[in-house]
């Protein structure tokens, strides 16, 4: 149940087509609108991107410059910094979201009174516009009298600059304990971690809903059988829930990683709400997506932005392949 092909439920497929000789050729007419838009606005642009990435100048005045855009990107420290930040972002949000989403969904799946109400509430952050909620959170992180600092004050901790802080979180924590960590250990900036906190808050409900759907599909008799065999709660979770939920975990991790690599709206909004330049304090919230947008929108370098997008797409694609491999192997082990 772990390879991507399980997106197609074989069991429910239609009766064998060969029995009926007559094909409904008109079916292609039904498919036409969807496929036409997909091809014109999603597939062809992907190929068009390779041509644009070889162009210099503004959009209306392109000129061929060969591989210069790629060479410039690969030599730009900003690009590598942005890539590192993007990796921090993915590592700092996706696993937490999956673990927390599964945890909450599992709790909700117990016999809970008012489950429907929780479901509605947990999905709320995903419903609210990211631009609006990012503004609210930026105000929560306001260094002068913001809620976040009030909470720290209640706990007896020193106030922080949050979205304005370019120092790494590990460095800040180290300072709290009187240690001086070396620069390479300082981690993502507190500004960026504040953005990640928002991202976890926003995406959690989506994961909860999807995990709930996955849990609903697990046959309850399996749990009964496990209980009869004397398994405790953790063993049931570890040996029944997790393996059978692998396709869902796979689906969510693919979707979240592809999405996180391109996270933009809230990072951009929180930078502006904190009166920071695009990229945040000392560029510590600059992800590849933000870097690309900056090159396109502020610098008017469409070709360069596209070259960056292609490099990003290659990384995403490679990671997706690795995930397919990883889950394929995991699936086989679980099946044995």
């Amino acid at each position: 149940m772990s390879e991507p092909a399980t997106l197609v439920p074989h069991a429910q497929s239609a009766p064998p087509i060969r029995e009926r000789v007559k094909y409904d050729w008109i079916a292609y007419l039904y498919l036409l609108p969807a496929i036409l838009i997909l091809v014109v606005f999603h597939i062809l642009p992907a190929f068009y991107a390779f041509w644009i990435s070889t162009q210099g100048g503004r959009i209306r005045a392109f000129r061929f410059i060969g591989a210069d855009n790629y060479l410039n990107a690969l030599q730009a420290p900003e690009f590598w910094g942005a890539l590192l930040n993007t990796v921090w972002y993915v590592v700092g949000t996706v696993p937490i979201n999956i673990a927390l989403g599964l945890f909450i969904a599992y709790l909700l799946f117990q016999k809970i009174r008012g489950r429907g109400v929780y479901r509605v509430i947990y999905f709320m952050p995903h419903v609210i516009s990211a631009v609006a909620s990012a503004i609210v959170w930026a105000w929560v992180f306001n260094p002068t009298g913001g809620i976040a600092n009030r909470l720290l004050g209640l706990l007896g901790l020193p106030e922080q600059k949050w979205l304005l802080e370019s120092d790494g979180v590990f460095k800040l924590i180290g300072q709290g304990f009187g240690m001086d960590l070396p620069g390479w250990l300082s981690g993502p900036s507190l500004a960026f971690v504040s953005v990640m906190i928002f991202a976890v808050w926003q995406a959690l409900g989506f994961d909860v809903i999807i995990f709930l759907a996955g849990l609903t599909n697990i046959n309850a008799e399996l749990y009964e059988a496990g209980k009869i065999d004397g398994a405790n709660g953790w063993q049931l979770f570890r040996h029944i829930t997790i393996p059978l939920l692998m396709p869902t975990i796979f689906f969510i991790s693919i979707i979240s990683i592809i999405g996180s690599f391109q996270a933009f709206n809230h990072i951009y909004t929180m930078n502006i709400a904190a009166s920071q330049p695009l990229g945040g304090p000392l560029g510590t919230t600059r992800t590849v997506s933000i870097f690309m947008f900056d090159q396109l929108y502020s610098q008017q370098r469409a070709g360069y932005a596209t070259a960056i997008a292609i490099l990003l797409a290659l990384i995403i694609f490679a990671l997706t392949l690795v995930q397919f491999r990883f889950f394929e192997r995991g699936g086989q082990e679980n099946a044995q």
Partner: protein
Amino acid sequence: MAKINWKRALIYAVLILGATASVLPFVYMLMTSVKTYGSATTNNFWPWPPLGDEPLQWNNFTEAITTAGMDKAWNIPLFVRYFANSVIVSVITVVGTVLTSILAAYALTHMNLPGRNLVFLLILATIMVPNDLTLVPKVVMMFNLQWYNTYLALTVPFLVSVFGIFLMRQFFLQIPRDLFDAACIDGAGHLRFLFTIVVPLSKPAIVTTALLNFIWAWDNFKWPLLVTRDSNMRVLAVGLQQFLQGEGGTKVQLMMAFATMVVIPIVVFYFFTQKYFTEGVITTGIKG
């Protein structure tokens, strides 16, 4: 027995904590939107009676609208234009997406066409193409097609949803094909069968597709910013952003009032559709 009760109490405590964290920023936004400038900036929790003496500042909403500026061409507040644009774009996107998804999902489930599953897999595979990759080419296309700064640019590229096709296909698969054969005997064709039998039976999937695409369309920010130029073509998300960068940035209470007006329509839509929504997601089982 006592042990079990403790466990359940813990479960409820965790769930309530999570639920509180989920809605608190929203409540905070609503509360701040009716505070005075002073109470908003000092985070005075409850400036109204009985703890304080300030009245609810409803005029923050009108002030936010006037502060956002006027549309000189039509002599109406720009906010009204933003709002109208968001509604137009979202409604067109949702209706279009639902229609293309229904038609495609129907062809993929209830019609005999060669290579049906291959077509479906190819459609699914397109989610592997990251949106960032196609962003600049699409912007260039908008210039070439002369769609820049028009509703066409804001809607047409979004009239399809792979997620919607996937969800509806899952739902349509549960509708027996015998039903179609019966309808055929009654003289119904594919289109009539689709819209009189399949669509009413698939309400949860359709509402779910509509809700999610409405959220995404309403929330869309980067694309409208890139393909519109005139302030009367801006949508709410972009207008909110510009308000933040302009006068609203310093007046928190107005900022929150503006944000509230952006958020309310979608929250209302959500509450009216949430019953079908969870049903749609759970019964179709997006199980990857």
